[in-house]
């Protein structure tokens, strides 16, 4: 029975009074907790050990650039973006790496998971000079299209803001770059649920329509999001259907275009000499007429039905839809006008020919 006796003694020991001795500290209780430390987490004050004397501005810029993409902490990313924006909006503009590099590095941030980072990124974009953005519209649009059909609704909506900015800054390039017209329209329709090609995959024959998908459910928040989508679609279409104003004749420019080296990058992009072969969606639609034609053929019916539905819903969505409707109508009217103009010209020529023959 030795072991049980021993255990009994041990149990009793807890209830015996401890004797205090002079000159010795009181024994610590068994459940004593050390609370002398101050903080639970370790805070690192600086992320780099290099001396930041404000001398190496270029290095600092690059460091911010790296932080904006690579840092795990969203705070840091956000702060780095703020710093970059500050540099870019200073006068004169301080940008040691150049806009192309900057964009290549930062564009994945469009679909960043943190909302603040995305808003700051948009601010940074707004700080960029429009003329520098123009050559990179195609690339930006690719990222925008990726973000427009993202799973998260917030990212979708923020991406739309980027698209909004892009249309504002360089409307012509946006609608005329390769894939810029049809593919973007495709993303829009998919976003709004107005896509006829999805319905065909559903191969359900019958009079019931498919249930409205979960992402387009009409709640207050979603309604606002959809209104925003429709508004930006309207802007996009407006940019696409904007009548081209012929440049006034300038002799210098005329000769330059023939004999001088072109000043814009990739001036023969429409020939697609080196890229992969493009399909109909990825094709360039450089002028209004081609854009309008392909729109008539592929999208007008689908978007019109979508607009009708949206109008009936009323509210914010309805208002946005009516704006869109107006854009469509003016486009159609211009088309008519253009047709009539062409016909008249044709007729004039025929008449002239007749006169000559006579």
């Amino acid at each position, binding site marked *: 029975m030795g072991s049980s006796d021993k255990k009994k003694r041990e149990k009793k020991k807890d209830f015996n009074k401890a004797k205090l001795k002079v000159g010795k500290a009181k024994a610590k209780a068994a459940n004593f907790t050390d609370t002398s430390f101050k903080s639970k987490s370790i805070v690192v004050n600086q992320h780099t050990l290099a001396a930041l004397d404000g001398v190496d501005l270029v290095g600092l810029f690059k460091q911010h650039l790296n932080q904006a*993409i690579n840092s795990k902490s969203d705070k840091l990313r956000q702060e780095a973006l703020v710093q970059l924006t500050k540099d870019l909006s200073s006068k004169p503009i301080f940008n040691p790496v150049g806009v192309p590099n900057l964009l290549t590095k930062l564009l994945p941030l469009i679909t960043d998971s943190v909302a603040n980072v995305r808003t700051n990124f948009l601010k940074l974009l707004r700080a960029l000079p429009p003329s520098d953005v123009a050559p990179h519209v195609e690339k930006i649009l690719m990222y925008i299209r990726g973000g427009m*059909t993202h*799973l998260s609704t*917030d990212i979708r909506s923020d991406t739309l803001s980027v698209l909004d900015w892009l249309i504002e800054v360089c409307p012509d390039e946006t609608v005329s770059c390769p894939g810029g017209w049809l593919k973007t329209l495709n993303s829009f329709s998919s976003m709004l649920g107005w896509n006829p090609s999805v319905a065909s995959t559903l191969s359900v024959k019958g009079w019931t329509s498919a249930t409205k*998908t979960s992402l387009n459910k009409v709640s207050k928040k979603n309604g606002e999001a959809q209104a925003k989508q429709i508004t930006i679609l309207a802007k996009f279409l407006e940019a696409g259907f904007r009548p081209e104003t012929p440049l006034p004749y300038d002799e210098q420019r005329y000769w330059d275009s023939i004999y001088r080296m072109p000043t814009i990058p990739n001036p023969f992009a429409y020939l697609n000499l080196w890229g992969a072969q493009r399909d109909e969606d990825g094709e360039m639609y450089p002028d209004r007429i081609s854009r309008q034609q392909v729109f008539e053929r592929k999208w007008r019916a689908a978007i019109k039905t979508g607009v009708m539905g949206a109008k009936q819903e009323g509210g914010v969505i309805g208002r946005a839809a009516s704006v869109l409707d107006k854009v469509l109508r003016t486009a159609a009217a211009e088309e008519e006008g253009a047709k009539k103009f062409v016909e008249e010209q044709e007729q004039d020529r025929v008449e002239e020919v007749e006169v000559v023959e006579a």
Partner: protein
Amino acid sequence: MPKRKVAALEKVDADLVSLQYKIRRDPKSYAQEFYDQWLAYDAQRQIFISSPSSASSEDNKKFHDLVDLIAHCADLYPDVTAPYYDQLKDLLTQHHAVLNPDLREKVVGSLSLLRRKDVIDSTSLLTTLFPILISTPSKSLRSLLYTKIISDLRESNSKATNHKLNRTIQTVLHNLVTSDRTSTKGMWACRITRELWRRQIWTDARPCDVMKEACLSDNEKVVVGGVRFFLGGDKEREEMEDDSSDEEIDVKKVKHQGTINKKTKKRQRVMEKAMEKIKKQERKKHAPHPLNFSALHLIHDPQGFAEQLFQKHLQNTKCKFSLDNKLLVLQLVTRLVGLHKLTIISLYPWFTKYLSPKQPSVTSFLASLAQATHNHVPPDAVEPLVIKIANEFVSEASAAEVASAGINSIREVALRQPLCMSETLLQDLVMYQKSKDKGVVMAAKGLQSLYREVYPELLQKKFRGKEATMGLKSGEVKRLKFGEEQVESGIEGIELLEKYKEEQRLKKLAEKGEDADGDAKMEDEDEDGFNSDEWEVASNDSDSSTGWINVEHSDDEDEGPAAKKQRRDSSVAPDLISDEAMAAAAEANRISKLAMTTILTPADLAKLAELRREAQLEKMTGNVSKRRQELINKHIEDGVTADDIELPAQIGKKSTKEERVAMAKDGKPAREEHKSTQAIRKSKKEAEGKSSTNKEKARKKNFLMTVGKAKAKHKRSLVDTKKRLTAHIARSKSGGRRRNGM
């Protein structure tokens, strides 16, 4: 206000995995979501293609996930995902060098997933992967592609042989080997062919043709790959077959566990799986053995092939292969020569240069020479070689190993072409049995016993032995001239089978005793010693029992009396044995009858082979050594290895202590420390994660934990005890506390 319902995708933001799960469960409702992701994938793909080498890790990751999602759902939306395969293919073929490894692996995995979902066919998958396998510099990608290709070929051949696909791939491999003979790319053809041959997926002549071309390549590696295939491919195949049938499941144990363990779904599943496996094994056991020819037999035009190999890699002085590889090629050439009895006269003079004891790995050369010899080789071609071996290797001055190897190789050559020996040389060699070294003695004796059988005239009279001398006198032992073939009239050993059947029948008769002469019909059925149910065509003399329709024609008239006579013979069997004179004439008659009157079943043929082997063993008087037995069992087509030549030198050598210890340890469980066997077993059990038995647990239980109960048991009243006992019985009947039986 009621709680707002949370929509499907709002709960988890941006979770592609859960989206995939939902799409696969209800593809119709999630078509829109899928289409969104398809667009996202498309955009991401374009981002990637616009700058494949400098894609950021973020982009790579996104693209990786989207590719994964689309691949898993591709079969649900065939219209939308129609271009998916082509896109992946282009991506892989154009950018496999710069793709991020993870992404690359995902793309390859997605392609094979598409194949598994039957979105694409095997041919398109393999034609996509194969060119990359050959061209990519990345080792990890190569191994990935290799496994994918092999597994896809296995899959598509699993139910039935997919001839069309096999032919396509074999043509591709053939072209790969033949198009550029100097490149190492042919290695991949070798590897793939060999693997599929090993798994018995390809068993016909076409893969052999591919390997044949590989052997004739200019690249050393490819040549070695091809040669190794022919030398070892079949053995590998057999080993693989043995391995696969290794895992035995104890049926009894599984069933027993099913009765005692608690019944859970998991256990049931495990049991079902085990039963399925057992059934599969049973089926495999009873399946007819596949008729697989050895690769060496499937070669088209072996003469041309062997000649080309010899000229290209051995005779050619410009060929700079290493000695080991040359030896491999030599082995293949000589193997072909021996197996197909080819004639390459220039091969034998070529050997002269290499037959000296100083030549590295000379035993392999000696073995190859023996392999290359057969009875159609002119003795003039081999004789100088034999003389050279005798001069170089066999002398009193040379080391014992060298001499024994020399004599042994001469014996191997002479076994195949006995005419290669002159009388003086043989007599000289046979005298070596007086040597001091046991190995040399054994080799010399082996040579002597060989010549006693095949050509005793060459031996001195005192070495001929009793049987050979008697045989010479009676004219039984006759030597064959060059080119003469020993032709068997009829089936070799048929008389043995006949005798065996007779014995069997007599035994049966003796068992039955008086029954024997009573029922003629019974006797008739059992006449051939085998149950006729085994193979219903076995006996054709039984007229009514098998239900075969008797068709009358001229043969039948002969057969009727023959059968009757046989029956009469059997009834007076003792007579037949006693009457010697009659036997000689009758036997020839009867033997031919057996082959003519009955159709031999597979069982008969197997027995025949066994009897033939036994007879051959019996012919060798006295106790037959193990090695002798092996020699007899060994087919002459099996080829000779260097070990065969070296072996006699090992005889009589004392092994060192280390060797003996290793021999003793072989096959026993390893023990690091000195422990009892029980302790070792126990620790092994523990290491396997197995629990102890209930008994063991009870024994180990702390005494103090049990003492209270024991005390209480003593104090129980009788009624209480009874109650407990009845409860115990009832409980055990109903399956214990867990109610296992319910």
